């Protein structure tokens, strides 16, 4: 057991210094002039809300992304960090948020990938398997080194990535939400490993949404908010309330336009709905109501709404639609009932990127635009243009491919197509991800107009202020279960965050 | 137990070789032998035929009847095979002295006869064996076709200085390609007087093009092999002449010779089964009629 006092005073020079580090993606300013120094041998936590820039910081340090400007000094010397290889050579390693390993290779092969053990010019597989097993055992991970990676759970794969980083003899090791998918035992083994690494003088950066872990494990904690560093504290000198305040302490601007619409008849009720990734979820949506689903990434909200939409049919429980129990086993069925789903990933689920804006917007309603199988081209054009105007999509024309639009406008296409379709119940999964403030306000205005037409809305968001301000009813999800329910603004941010994190 | 005498042809998918099989089948019935029908699936698949030969020999047959796809390539494999079993060659020759007996149409001679037939037809129409002529080859890299073309070209060069070979075209095994080539030849060389198509499939295409353009009178098409459709074209003058070998007899006599060889009988080393030019004039003669309509 190392105690935080070990580094108190911290006489050692910083091993890595970030000076005005800046990173822009087209459309997003992900890191805003971050100044941060990591001391040798400390465990440094980085916390912040979704999209605060934590992963981006890590990816810049591991040279996955090039920085836009600023300086990085490693052991006092400025380094370019031009290729992943260079980071690895310096001793900077990361266990990324998404597992980046080869699913077809064995655990041992993944651990040694790019740095195989050789004998007489050949792979020394037996030794690698043995060494990998020894390593895993030492680390306290109960994993078979000979197993094919894809046969492991996501969490176990994360442990493999950890072991791999550890074996590379890292001097600086970054964990990006390592415990998100781990069981309790696995997490305990990981903590033991991290402490041991620290004793060996390795510097650890630890990113997590789980504040209790920060207090259990870390020496110092930095808080990122909207890409900017808002403060660094010694863990011993702070507390959870303090950190949460730092994380969410923002001026609530007048962007949350909340129309108060009288709440009407019940549209949808789920009764103890159970399916892949969630259990026993009971939710009711009424006319004119926004039901917010809040939770951390991986809490099972997307799975829940996809079940309601028929994408991955539920395995237990009941769905009652306007008083009638229904079984929804296909997307078409859901649409015919009057349910619309705008999925969370624009790229993977929402858009046909290389096709035109018009086609994407009209995709759910071509039946309506057709006479028999033939499309009424005029109506198709009119419908697209109207929607482009109504939702204020900035595009050269309806024929321009969606990929040529900015992220916010792409999101408006995803939403626009369902407004076009019309429905009784709209489900929006992370409708404002990667969307700038102005566009957000427009999206919120659209929600209002839907409510006025008598529709109900389910809105998933990992951005607390948004659901907090907009939802008439706010459900909090944790680990696939609905753990708390609040009325409009009748709980504090702190309470809700605590419920989601599960302290 | 019946003796086994496999017959190995060049291309089991071709109608011509199916007639060889028909002859062999009849012999099998008449002589009470077992006749596996073997062969590669394309005339250009030399390796395939060598493989089939090896397999056939491994089956310890009484004799093997083979139509070698390529002169040089089949030489050594036949030498090898002949060590354990008598080999009867049919249709084409190979670079081997190990054949017990050999029943061939000399393809080179066939090409020469084609040139003669074409020249004859041109002379009948234009008064002199003069003018432009062409050649359409079914596929590149096929031994018997190369031999036919060689005979055709040499005969033209030697005997008909007035006939100029102005186009030497190679098709890709599709009848439609032959059709397109012929159509374009008619366009590009309006005074074309003769064409030699060196196998059945190309003849299907070439004759079709001549029929479409109603050029049967102006262009004298001579082909190797025949089927019902081509006989029709011969009758209506679209085709000037068909060179017929006697595949049925090759099949029949091949098996018969094989059986005789297996019994150690003495056989003539070479039998020419002949290539016969069938024209509209002689097509109703008994011999030619039999060649045109072989028993199935």
């Amino acid at each position, binding site marked *: 057991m190392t105690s935080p006092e070990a580094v108190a005073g911290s006489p050692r020079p910083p091993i890595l210094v970030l000076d005005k580090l800046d990173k822009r993606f*087209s459309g997003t300013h992900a890191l805003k002039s971050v100044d941060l120094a990591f001391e040798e041998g400390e465990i440094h936590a980085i916390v912040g809300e979704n999209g605060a820039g934590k992963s981006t910081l890590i990816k810049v340090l591991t040279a996955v992304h090039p920085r836009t400007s600023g300086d990085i000094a490693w052991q006092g010397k400025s380094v370019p960090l031009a290729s992943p290889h260079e980071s690895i050579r310096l001793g900077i390693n990361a266990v990324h948020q998404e597992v980046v390993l080869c699913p077809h290779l064995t655990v041992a092969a993944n651990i040694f990938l790019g740095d195989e053990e050789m004998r007489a010019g050949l792979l020394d597989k037996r030794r690698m398997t043995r060494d990998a097993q020894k390593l895993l055992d030492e680390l306290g991970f109960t994993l078979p080194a000979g197993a094919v990676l894809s046969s492991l759970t996501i969490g176990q794969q994360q442990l493999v990535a950890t072991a791999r980083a550890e074996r590379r003899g890292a001097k600086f090791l970054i964990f990006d939400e390592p415990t998100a998918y781990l069981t309790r035992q696995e997490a305990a083994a990981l903590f033991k490993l991290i402490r041991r690494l620290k004793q060996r003088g390795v510097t650890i950066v630890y990113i997590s949404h789980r504040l209790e872990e920060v207090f259990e494990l870390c020496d110092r904690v930095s808080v990122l908010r909207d890409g900017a560093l808002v403060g660094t504290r010694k863990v011993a000198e702070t507390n959870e309330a303090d950190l949460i305040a730092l994380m969410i302490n923002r001026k609530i601007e007048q962007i949350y336009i909340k129309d108060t619409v009288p709440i009407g008849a019940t549209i949808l009720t789920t009764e103890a709905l159970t399916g892949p990734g969630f259990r026993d979820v009971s939710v009711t949506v009424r006319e004119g109501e926004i039901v917010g689903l809040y939770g951390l990434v991986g809490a099972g909200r997307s799975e829940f709404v996809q079940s309601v939409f028929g*994408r991955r049919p539920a395995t237990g429980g009941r769905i009652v639609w306007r008083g009638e129990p229904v079984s929804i086993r296909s*997307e*078409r069925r859901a*649409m015919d009932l009057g349910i619309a*789903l705008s999925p969370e990933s624009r790229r993977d*689920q*929402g*858009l046909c*990127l*290389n*096709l035109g804006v018009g*086609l994407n917007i*009209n*995709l*759910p309603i*071509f039946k309506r*635009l*057709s006479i028999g*199988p*033939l*499309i009424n*081209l005029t109506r198709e054009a009119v419908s697209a243009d109207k929607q482009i105007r109504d939702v204020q999509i*900035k*595009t050269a024309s309806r*024929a*321009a*491919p969606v990929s*040529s*639009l*900015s992220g916010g406008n792409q999101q408006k296409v995803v939403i626009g*197509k369902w407004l076009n379709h019309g429905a009784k119940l709209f489900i929006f999964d992370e409708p404002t991800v990667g969307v700038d403030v102005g566009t957000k306000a427009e999206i919120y205005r659209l929600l209002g107009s839907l409510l006025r037409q008598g529709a109900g809305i389910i809105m998933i968001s990992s951005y607390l202020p948004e659901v907090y301000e907009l939802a008439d009813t706010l459900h909090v999800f944790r680990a696939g279960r609905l753990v708390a329910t609040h009325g409009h603004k009748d709980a504090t941010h702190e309470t809700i965050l605590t419920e989601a994190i599960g302290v | 137990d019946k003796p086994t005498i496999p017959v190995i042809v060049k291309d*089991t*998918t*071709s*109608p011509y*070789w*199916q007639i060889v099989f028909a002859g062999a089948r009849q012999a099998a019935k008449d002589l009470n032998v077992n006749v596996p029908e073997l062969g590669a699936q394309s005339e250009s698949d030399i390796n395939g035929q060598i493989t089939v030969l090896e397999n056939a020999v491994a089956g310890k047959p009484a004799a093997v009847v083979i139509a070698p796809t390529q002169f040089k390539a089949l030489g050594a494999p036949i030498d090898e095979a002949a060590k354990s079993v008598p080999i009867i060659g049919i249709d084409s020759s190979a670079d081997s002295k190990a054949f017990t007996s050999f029943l061939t149409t000399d393809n080179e001679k066939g090409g020469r006869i084609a040139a003669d037939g074409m020249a004859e037809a041109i002379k009948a129409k234009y008064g002199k064996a003069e003018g432009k002529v062409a050649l359409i080859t079914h596929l590149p890299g096929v031994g018997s076709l190369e031999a036919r073309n060689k005979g055709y070209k040499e005969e033209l060069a030697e005997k008909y200085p007035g006939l100029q070979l*102005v186009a030497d*075209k190679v098709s*890709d*095994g*599709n009848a*439609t390609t032959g*059709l*397109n*080539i012929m*159509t*374009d*030849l008619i*366009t*590009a060389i309006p005074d074309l007087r003769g064409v030699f198509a060196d196998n059945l*499939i190309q003849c*299907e295409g070439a004759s*079709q093009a001549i*029929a479409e353009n109603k050029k049967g009178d102006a262009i004298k098409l001579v082909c190797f092999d025949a*089927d*019902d*459709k081509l006989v*029709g074209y011969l009758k209506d003058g679209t085709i000037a002449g068909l060179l017929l070998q006697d595949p049925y007899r090759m099949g029949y006599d091949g098996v018969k010779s094989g059986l005789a060889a297996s019994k150690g009988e003495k056989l003539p080393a070479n039998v020419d089964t002949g290539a016969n030019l069938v024209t509209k004039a002689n097509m109703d003669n008994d011999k030619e009629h039999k060649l045109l309509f072989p028993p199935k």
Partner: protein
Amino acid sequence: MTDQTTTASEGQRGRRLDLLLGLTLLGLLLVMWLALSLETTTFWTSNNMSNLLRQGAMIAILAIGETFAIITGGIDLSVGAVAGFVSMAVAWLLTHDLGVASTIAGAITISLAIGVVIGLFHAFGVVQMGLPPFIMTLATMYALRGIGLLITNGATISITNTAFTGFSRASFLGFPWTDGTWFQIPMLFWMVIVVAIPAYILLDQSRWGRYLFAIGSNKEAARLSGVNVAAITYLAYVVSSFCAAFVGILLAMRIGIGNPTQAEGWELQAIASSVIGGTSLFGAVGSVHGPLIGSFILTTINNGANLLNLNPFWQRIITGFLIIIVVYFDTLRTRKR
């Protein structure tokens, strides 16, 4: 704001590249025609241009069908085998005495139905069994040729029905040519039109066409928008096989025989035509006019080489390099996006 402008100009650049490709192709075709007209006296004649239309017809129809499979992100390697098989089937039906099935209309209907069944089988393999389209259609290609040969035992079936075979030689309508002769539009080219117009309507004017593009672009997004992905995949492979069967019938008409070994290698010519015509093998990019132009480019290469009495082997080399160049431009365009 700066964002908007950059992306807008990117969109324009994308479209400009598209347009460029379209014009380049048509330009290429016209330049080839011009060059051949100047180089030979025989190219730009009513007769030869009729021939050209007739020669390109079958590959054009195959390429149009193939394009449907490619747009969904798949491929159909069996189209040549299907055409050969159907040429055999239609000839077999016509030369047997099976009542209605042996009338021209009956034989054609049954042959087209064979195409539909093969298409359904492909889609079953791709959708229900989850096989890669490449493998599924490769396997059918093998099997179909074998089955055809087994049925005919390798023989050609001569079609004696002249009403049937005469069709491929017939023409319909025409117009005066530049040299005063009468240009006749061959029936075979009308058949291209007969296929191209419904194909165009299906691909460009019907909602199923939109769905074809959508599943080629993003299957999951299409599904979540209520598109029946399985049904549309079935549609694509059925159209492809149907076109191939149609070509098989035309082939039997044209050469007057049925033979399952015919149309060998046509699948590659169809794919090449489609790809040269701007269809993207990554899916979701393609048209009906593209493969049409593509197939006539390939046909012009062949026709021109014949007229110029060029060595026929050049055709293969030119085709090979043309494919590399055109697809390279396509990947450039895709990457730009």
